[in-house]
């Protein structure tokens, strides 16, 4: 039978129906098929030829996960290289949000396995909402071996969980030097808003106070990362390469561990602060504030209980009282008064007769004793208020303020630690500016004995005494040696912590000798207020201060369980001229300056003993071994005696 492409009567079947499909339509079908395939090929061309690079990058991103390698944080040592702060390995659990399919369904299991309440996980997620999706969220730090096993066992169901080996901070126990060292914690939202923290991401661990905060950028190093090939379930299939972490720099602090121990012991069970420094360099040798806290609690899962305990403690354990307690300096201020009085040529010739106080401007100002005839030489050891009331009255507030400011009162010292406060040194200009009122001459009288509007921190007093005792050069205190820090960072730190910096005090040699001799009598003479703290054979000098925390009248009225005992101050040094060490002690409600002097003497004692031991060692090392008697040979030409060839 002939093939035909047309319907014609021959193609009709037995019942007269067409037996063939129109050939035109079948041709059309061929074109339709070809057309569809061309459209599909165009689609493939678009993806595989034009978009290949873009999609290749996406495919890489799909299977490569950057696993961070955390840089170990730099350790901290004391000035002799003794370890203060170390790291220990720990494992943390992270949430990879890109791996999450149905988090609400997984939540109960995660909560149960990691022992974290569901609400807490949800709160964490909310906190990280702004963070990019690829960034892992820390769910729990320092997880237990059981929790690690849980994560490993549920890898298939919970591909979003990832563990990460980390280094955790290990601080000395019992809050030792806690305020100086500081602590680390997760970067806070407020910090992230601060341009200085622009390079930090949520979840980063940063120094939150003390040296940890100031030198964070040096201590933290630089995190690296490892490129891991994973499948869609997060299972590792291999890895490509890695960028190693740059460990943080180890830092040597100016702290002397022995002195720090002595200072910690001295303040044990008390509230207050101790600062010990090298007056020639501004190096801080010891710094203690009490009460203290445990910085380890901050570096790993700070519990709500511990936080509440710290925050609600009326003695404010987080406060570094060395830098943040601004209190009336009491009679320690008399040293500054003496400088002012002598330099103004007023005090040399001043003689007062102390009968337990004196009257100024119609008001009686009391002294705690009848000192009788007092001049500048015994005014300091007696701590005679009457003398200084009179001196203050003669000098006037602005002259006093000029000298007090020159030794750094009313300004930050610029120490390389956060949150220092400035204290107050009143003057007529100060009062006009802050209280829009004029200064009354009567107010000057109280300032003369370190009461009234004048306030200072232990650090300011230590520095002021350092300047006076060393002959007039005031150093910027610091806790990290300058050569430990790159110069650009030193610059940045000095700018972040502005203070008066190094300065020279107007003080003649004669006056310097007079003041330091008088201070020596405070501790070494039986007439001195701190004779009880004297150290046999040690040239230990200083000045006590007993500062009322509340006025006499108010004291009579109040009875509310507040501690109304005066604050006990002492600033001391050894030896009296060109001292190697200056100590400032604040014992809150310690009652008498004498009590603080005894604490200071413990630190001076530790210092002197250590120096003696060192000196002895040097002396022993320097002593030549006794020569063995060698009677047989009177001379030994072959031994150490060099035979120098004669130069001809």
């Amino acid at each position, binding site marked *: *039978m002939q*093939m035909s*492409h047309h*319907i014609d009567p021959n193609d*009709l*079947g037995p019942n*007269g*129906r*067409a*037996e*063939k*499909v*129109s*050939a035109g*339509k*079948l041709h059309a*079908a*061929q074109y*339709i*098929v*070809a057309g*569809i*395939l061309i*459209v*599909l*090929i165009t*689609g*493939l*061309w*678009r*993806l*595989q*030829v034009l*978009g*290949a690079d*873009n*999609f*290749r990058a*996406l*495919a*890489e991103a*799909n*299977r490569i996960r950057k696993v961070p390698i955390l840089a170990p944080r730099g350790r901290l040592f004391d000035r002799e290289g003794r370890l203060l702060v170390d790291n220990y390995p720990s494992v943390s659990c992270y949430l990879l949000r*890109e791996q*999450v*399919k149905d988090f609400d369904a997984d939540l109960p299991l995660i909560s149960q396995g990691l022992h974290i309440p569901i609400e807490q996980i949800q709160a964490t997620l909310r906190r990280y909402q702004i963070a990019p999706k690829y960034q892992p969220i820390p769910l729990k730090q320092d997880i237990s071996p059981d929790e690690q096993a849980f994560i490993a066992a549920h890898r298939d169901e919970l591909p979003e969980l990832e563990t990460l080996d980390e280094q955790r901070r290990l601080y000395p126990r019992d809050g030792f030097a806690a305020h100086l060292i500081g602590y680390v914690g997760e970067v806070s939202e407020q910090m992230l808003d601060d341009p200085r923290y622009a390079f930090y991401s949520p979840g980063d661990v940063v120094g939150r106070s003390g040296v940890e905060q100031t030198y964070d950028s040096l201590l933290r190093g630089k995190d690296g990362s490892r490129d891991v*090939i*994973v*499948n*869609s*379930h997060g299972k590792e*299939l291999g890895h490509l390469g890695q960028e190693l972490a740059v460990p943080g720099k180890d830092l040597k602090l100016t702290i002397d561990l022995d002195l720090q121990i002595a200072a910690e012991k001295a303040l044990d069970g008390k509230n207050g602060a101790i600062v010990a420094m090298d007056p020639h360099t501004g190096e801080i040798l010891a710094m203690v504030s009490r009460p203290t806290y445990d910085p380890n609690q901050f570096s790993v899962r700070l519990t709500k209980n511990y936080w509440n305990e710290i925050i609600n403690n009326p003695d404010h354990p987080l406060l570094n009282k060395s830098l943040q307690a601004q209190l009336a300096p009491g009679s320690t201020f008399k040293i500054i008064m003496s400088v002012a009085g002598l330099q103004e040529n007023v005090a040399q010739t001043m003689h007062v007769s102390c009968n337990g106080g004196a009257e100024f401007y119609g008001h009686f100002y009391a002294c705690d004793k009848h000192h009788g005839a007092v001049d500048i030489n015994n005014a300091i050891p007696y701590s005679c208020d009457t003398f200084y009331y009179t001196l203050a009255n003669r000098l006037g507030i602005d002259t006093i303020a000029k000298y007090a400011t020159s030794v750094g009162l009313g300004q930050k010292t610029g120490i390389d630690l956060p949150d220092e406060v400035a204290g107050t040194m009143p003057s007529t200009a100060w009062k006009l500016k802050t209280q829009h009122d004029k200064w009354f001459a009567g107010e000057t009288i109280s300032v003369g004995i370190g009461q009234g509007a004048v306030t200072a921190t232990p650090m300011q007093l230590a520095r002021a005494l350092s300047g006076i005792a060393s002959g007039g050069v005031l150093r910027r205190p610091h806790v990290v040696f300058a050569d430990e820090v790159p110069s650009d960072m030193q610059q940045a730190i000095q700018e972040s912590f502005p203070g008066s910096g190094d300065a020279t005090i107007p003080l003649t040699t004669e006056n310097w000798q007079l003041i330091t001799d008088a201070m020596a009598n405070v501790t070494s003479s039986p007439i001195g207020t701190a004779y009880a703290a004297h150290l046999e054979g040690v040239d230990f000098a200083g000045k006590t201060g007993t500062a009322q925390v509340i006025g006499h009248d108010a004291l009579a009225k109040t009875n509310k369980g507040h501690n109304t005992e005066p604050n006990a101050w002492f600033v001391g040094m050894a030896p009296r001229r060109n001292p190697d060490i200056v100590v400032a002690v604040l014992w809150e409600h310690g009652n008498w300056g004498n009590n603080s002097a005894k604490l200071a003497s413990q630190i001076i004692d530790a210092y002197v003993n250590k120096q003696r031991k060192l000196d002895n060692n040097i002396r022993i090392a320097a002593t030549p071994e006794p020569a063995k008697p060698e009677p047989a040979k009177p001379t030994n030409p072959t031994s150490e005696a060099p035979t120098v060839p004669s130069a001809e």
Partner: protein
Amino acid sequence: MPRFSSYRDFDWVLLGFVLLLSLISVLEIKSATLHTKFHGFDHKQIQFLAGGIFLMFVISLIDYHRLIDIVHWAYGVSVLSLIAVLIVGTKVLGGRRWIKFPGGIHFQPSEWVKLVLILAVARYFWGLAGKELTWGDIGKAAAMVVVPMALVLKQPDLGTALTYLPILICGLFLGGIRVKQVGLVVLALALIGGVAWKSGKHLKPYQQARINAFMDPDSDPRGSGYQIRQSLIAVGSGGIWGKGANKGSQTQGDFLPIPYTDFIFAAFCEEHGFVGAIGVLLLYFLILMRLIQNAQTASDLPGSFIIMGVVAVIVFQIAVNVGMVVGLMPVTGIPLPLLSYGGSSVLFTFLSLGIVMNIRMRRFVN
């Protein structure tokens, strides 16, 4: 009446192309399941292919006129089996599509209904040959296809239900629908579709999500957009030459969803690139041209109709599946004939080819 048929007239060239595609299929299934729990599916696919080829030869021996004679019975049984699926079917992935027989055999009636519809439509239009189509004729043809379609949609299995449409369209086209009628039908369908989409009542939420994902794949990259996004990445990252067999990171890393069934072409494109993909599409082109040629040489009208029905279904599946993989179509669960893993799909394809061979072998016989 058929008296004699010979394997000399069997389309060996067509079979060659088909077997070449089947080989590619087996290799790609092997690659795509290499690191998964579906490892070994390539062996199962070989068994399906063997069964399919056997059935192809068997059905080629039965004169297709006999099949047309009994198609009204088959159609009845089809509709009943689809109803049965809805009542006693095994629920898999949220849909009832399979009837489970003792001995672990799963049977998906909707696949073989395709074949029955092809035969039924051929028979129907044969009866109308030489006559101008009236609205009544069009309505009856539409009803014949829409009834099983509705039952399959109910399962729900939008993908398979949609494959019935090209059978109807092909029938109407070859059966002589007039341009004016086409315009009105398209208008009506567009209207119904528009209203259905607007009211949203006739699409499951997941189906709406798929269409949304198609419009904007990045809108929900972890949700409904995930599949299409991963598929585009797989295809695109394959580039011109591909990443090599068993080396596709999207396929091997389990990022590409179901890379051995609906997304097998994406897996193939990733590993063999634009060049490989063109090769496969060329093979399809050759197969389809060969089929249309067989329709041209068929000895009678129902033969041509049946072959063109098969062509329509295969073209539609290629267009929808490959279109989906390259992002030109929304995600629909339609297998790619001869490439996707799956017994029902393999059996349908080879039974269809068996009937095509059957028609070809009888092209000189009357």
